[in-house]
């Protein structure tokens, strides 16, 4: 045993030594004991400078038409026959290495890739594996690496994960200050956003101006918008899976960025050399000066602060076992000029254990705790109070994966979580007793799911993936539940009694089977057709009467009045790559059917509402669309164009005519934007300078215009009848950025200067149009533009 170890060490040393000298000389790998088949070569790909493992790099053996993707530590494994090979190592944003070897016996190799500094003709915009879009059976799964996002013009000085995703087909945002995503006609609450496996409830800073994730600590982001693998559940539209980076086990390093809006720093390195790594990141805004320069006097007298922090401890304790702990927090407070402060915070802990039980069997377990809380503080001197609200998730999941072969694998797993919500608690804060303590009943629920998925290929042409997930959910006491008179709308007036449930007592149970299936037929090596279906359940609803996620929004569990949201989605796609994968194209069509989407009664009161069922109406939703996508991966000019035609509709039919919205007809949802076009280009001007630009166009979102103007109590009012019948003016905006890489002496001087200009031609895109009186002028239509002028930013980033 000891002998083997010594030999291994020898080969590791040899391989890396050989690599750093000249990869063109053929390297002999392994100890020659005359082995002919089943030669196992394992290795690790790492960054030349930082020593961090490169996750998701590809290892290709062209002779065998074999491709491997590196794991979380940058590790890979190849099973070869005794022969000569030229192995290709590729990673986005790094120089590709063709590495000739002769495999003679089991061995190990370490490859160090060098980051390309805007090397011409060699920048891959994204896609870790150039033919993945064609070959995989996945549908609508998009992975964006941080290197890809760096190619986009930054938003307010830095990479914005959520906004980057919104440039993709089928993904949109309500407006310029809104952090959530609308994926294929779904609401912002229908996306599960998870960071290192833990759900995050509010992904935004500053009411949506900034994304609450620090791009420097994120490794990659995957969005599933069509067929969601069975291992994910709990939300009905899409899954956004954000994975943090792991620190380097060999060497200390970090990133620093300063912009005119915010600054961030991250550090990573070995806690125990070659065993345990740590990565910490911190980001803070100094946005107050910006607020003070705004022309709106209320905003000018406001104060805003935010920060977010990350900690990742990764312990690849052996080749077989790895533990990762991740901590994430984000905090915001915003003080309005009128003595009201609102603050909100996300906290998430997760611990993951990944184990390789054998070459075919792998196991993963993950536990998490997440807390989202907000507070509203009124310290105006009259009836001072504080409102507190929070939502907590405590859960765990496990996966067992078994690879029958290269082309056939199954994943089986289970998931359980408990959700506790404190919808609101009003605590008097004044010296006088002039306001009552008030508490909305807490909510509790538990959710469990088991799932199974099998992915396999039949020859080159056919690929299948089918899965099944069963979700069950219970709404729990303690709780006092009202009963309402039959044949009457739910209202305070129709309440006829109450039932008390004890702590932990089951009030309502829901559950259902969620099948997932996709099928791929390859027309050629460069083109394929895919078909997919999935069904998802969601037992939680965002109670928000605005079109975006507001920090003070309340989440509500499904109860005996409000059933789970259920989505059925059918999709069909055609994928074709041209010119050796330089161009990727795709057309996808989808149809989605939604049940139990929440709509609101006119003038609903949602904050501190103890009987929220009296303010809500369940709606049906339907969404359909066609998405076109063309991407150029290589060359001086890279980028993509995406165009989506889609509709997102809602319908409310209740037994009570007065509660129907728009007479029970289909109407456009708040984020229905039929035409949506994004053009993105990145042009390398020289080896150290690049420019990028984004142009976005979309139909204006629906708004409600008044039918009439009337006067009551001296106030001019608008009478609205049907919802969402008119539209805002079309949205279009051009953003532009220049990136200059500064070559200095020593690593602390190699920096990136990025200057960006958002909204280049200063279009006042309407966020909303509303009807009212502004000072001294008659009642009229008024337009709010969030980004009414060109918005410049300047940032400087270094890696050390």
């Amino acid at each position, binding site marked *: 045993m000891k002998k083997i170890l010594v030999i291994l060490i020898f080969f590791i040393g040899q391989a890396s030594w050989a690599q750093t000298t000249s990869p063109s000389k053929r390297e002999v790998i392994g100890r020659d004991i005359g082995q002919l088949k089943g030669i196992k070569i394992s290795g690790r790909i790492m960054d030349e400078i930082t020593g961090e493992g490169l996750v998701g790099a590809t290892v290709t053996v062209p002779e065998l038409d074999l491709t491997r993707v590196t794991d979380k530590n940058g590790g890979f494994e190849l099973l070869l026959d005794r022969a000569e090979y030229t192995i290709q190592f590729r990673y986005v944003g790094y120089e590709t290495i063709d590495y000739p070897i002769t495999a003679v016996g089991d061995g190990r190799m370490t490859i160090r890739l060098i980051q390309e500094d805007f090397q011409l003709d060699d920048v891959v915009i994204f896609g870790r594996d150039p033919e993945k879009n064609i070959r995989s059976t996945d549908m609508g799964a998009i992975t964006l690496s941080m290197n890809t996002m760096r190619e986009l013009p930054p938003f307010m000085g830095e990479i914005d994960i959520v906004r980057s995703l919104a440039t993709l087909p089928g993904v949109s945002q309500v407006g310029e200050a809104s952090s959530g995503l609308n994926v294929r006609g779904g609401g912002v609450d229908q996306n599960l956003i998870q960071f290192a496996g833990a759900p995050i409830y509010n992904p935004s800073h500053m009411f949506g101006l900034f994304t609450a994730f620090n791009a420097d600590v994120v490794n990659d982001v995957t969005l599933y918008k069509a067929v969601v693998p069975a291992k994910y559940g709990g939300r009905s539209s899409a899954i956004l899976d954000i994975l943090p980076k792991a620190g380097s086990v060999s060497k200390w390093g970090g990133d620093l960025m300063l912009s005119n809006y915010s600054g961030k720093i991250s550090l990573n390195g070995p806690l125990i050399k070659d065993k345990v790594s740590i990565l910490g990141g911190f980001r803070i805004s100094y946005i107050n000066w910006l607020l003070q320069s705004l022309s709106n006097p209320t905003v000018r007298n406001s104060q805003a602060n935010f920060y977010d922090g990350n900690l990742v401890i990764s312990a690849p304790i052996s080749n077989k076992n790895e533990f990762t702990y991740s901590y994430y927090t984000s905090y915001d407070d915003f003080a309005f000029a009128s003595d009201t402060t609102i603050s909100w915070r996300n906290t998430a802990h997760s611990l993951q254990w990944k184990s390789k039980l054998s070459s075919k069997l792998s196991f993963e377990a993950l536990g998490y705790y997440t807390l989202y809380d907000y507070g509203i503080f009124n310290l105006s001197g009259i009836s001072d109070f504080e409102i507190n609200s929070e939502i907590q998730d405590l859960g765990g999941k496990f996966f067992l994966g078994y690879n029958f072969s290269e082309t056939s694998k199954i994943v089986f797993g289970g998931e359980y979580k408990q959700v506790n919500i404190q919808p609101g608690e009003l605590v008097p804060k004044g010296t006088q007793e002039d306001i009552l303590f008030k508490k909305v009943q807490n909510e509790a629920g538990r959710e469990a799911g088991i799932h199974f998925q099998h992915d396999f290929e039949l020859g080159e042409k056919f690929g299948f993936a089918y899965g099944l997930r069963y979700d069950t959910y219970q709404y729990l006491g303690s709780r006092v539940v009202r009963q309402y008179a039959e044949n009457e709308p739910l209202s305070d007036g129709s309440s006829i009694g109450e039932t008390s449930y004890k702590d932990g007592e089951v009030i309502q149970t829901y559950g259902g089977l969620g099948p997932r299936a996709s099928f791929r037929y390859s027309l050629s090596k460069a083109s394929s057709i895919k078909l997919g279906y999935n069904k998802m359940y969601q037992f939680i609803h965002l109670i928000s009467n605005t079109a975006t996620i507001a920090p003070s929004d309340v989440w509500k569990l499904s109860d005996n009045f409000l059933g789970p949201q259920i989505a059925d989605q059918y999709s069909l796609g055609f994928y074709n790559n041209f010119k050796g994968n330089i161009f990727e194209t795709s057309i996808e069509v989808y149809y989605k059917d939604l049940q139990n989407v929440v709509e609101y009664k006119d003038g609903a009161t949602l904050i501190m509402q103890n009987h929220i069922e009296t303010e809500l109406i369940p709606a049906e939703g339907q969404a359909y669309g066609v998405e076109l996508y063309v991407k150029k991966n290589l060359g001086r000019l890279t980028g993509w164009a995406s165009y989506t035609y889609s509709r997102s509709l809602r319908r409310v039919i209740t037994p009570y005519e007065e509660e129907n919205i728009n007479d029970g007809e289909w109407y456009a949802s708040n984020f229905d934007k039929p035409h949506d076009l994004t053009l993105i280009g990145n042009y390398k001007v020289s080896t150290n300078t690049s420019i990028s630009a984004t142009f976005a166009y979309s139909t204006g979102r629906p708004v409600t215009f008044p039918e009439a103007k009337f006067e009551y109590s001296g106030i001019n009012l608008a009478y609205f009848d049907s919802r969402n019948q008119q539209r805002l003016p079309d949205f279009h905006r051009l953003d532009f950025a220049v990136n200059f890489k500064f070559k200095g002496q020593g690593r602390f001087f190699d920096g990136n200067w990025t200057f960006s200009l958002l909204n280049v031609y200063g279009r006042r895109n309407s966020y909303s149009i509303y009807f009212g009186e502004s000072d001294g002028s008659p009642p009229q239509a008024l337009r709010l533009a969030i980004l009414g002028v060109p918005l*410049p930013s300047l940032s400087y980033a270094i890696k050390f």
Partner: protein
Amino acid sequence: MVKKLIYILLLLPMACIDPYQVNVPGGPQLLTVDGLIHSGPGPHAVTISQSATYGSIFERLIRPVRGAIVVIRDNEGNVILLEEGLETRGSYFTPVGFQAKIGNSYTLQIQTAEGKVYTSLPERVESAPQIENIELKTVKIPVKGETNPRSGVQLISEINDPADQKNFYFWRLSPVVHVLEARPDLHFDQRTLTPAPKACCYTCFKTEAVGNQSLFIAQDDSFNGLKTRIPTGFIEDNGIRFVNKLRVDVNQYAVSKEAYRFLRLVKQQAEINGSIFDPPPATIRGNMVSLDDPEEVVLGYFIAAGASKKRIYIDKSDLTFRQNTVIIPDDCRAVDGAKLFPPADWNP
């Protein structure tokens, strides 16, 4: 260059609100009712108008509905005929001496000159507690593009909310009466452009209605049974009102739950500011229906409420911040609504 760039970055105004021309389709003209009768002394008014299309005020006016027959019935069978004001067309007034009775229910019935008949749903009169005390708070409102803020006085009322019932409150200010100070000695002849001082008069009393962009309402959900303080009105300082003394009555109405819901929707709409957290526009439905066509939309609300009121005199020294005094270089009687003598019950 760098310095200049930073300067530009620092001066950045970002968000903005501006008027926007939209073509709102011309809607139907809808009958609108704004009526409030209460248990206090009258006369009480019911104003009837015709809605207009949202847009330019010059083209589409909200017109009063004249010549209608307006009656109020109570649950005891009494019928009270309201009479249209001679100067205020479209406003109909209860006879002198009419006061709504606590515990009674009232309905409003309207027959227009064209013969269309409308009725309200019955409204029950609840009793209103007294306003114990009124505190004043000077409020500054920053104004876009101006260095000087607007300002005014917030009236904070103290009430003892009855514990045994759900209470819905609506507050309205009476027209204010204030001392008006002018400078006739500074009068200037507009034609000859020469000083033309007048001997009289320096001090008058002006009565005027102070409008508010919103409503003051509350329900006792969060203060049932407590002694509480609630903002119940606001009087803006226009540089004339608060030069000496000002008198105002805070009228407190105990309204029905349905009326409260209506008022809340009105308030919600009046306070919409286009922000990303605005609720979507809501249909404001009242308690009026057409007897000829149940599908016809009738706007507005007829409220019958218990009332109480408290009168206060505000001295200029009560304000911690005042606007610069506007100088009126004329006889104070030349000002609209100004009289030389105070009302008979002026008793600061």
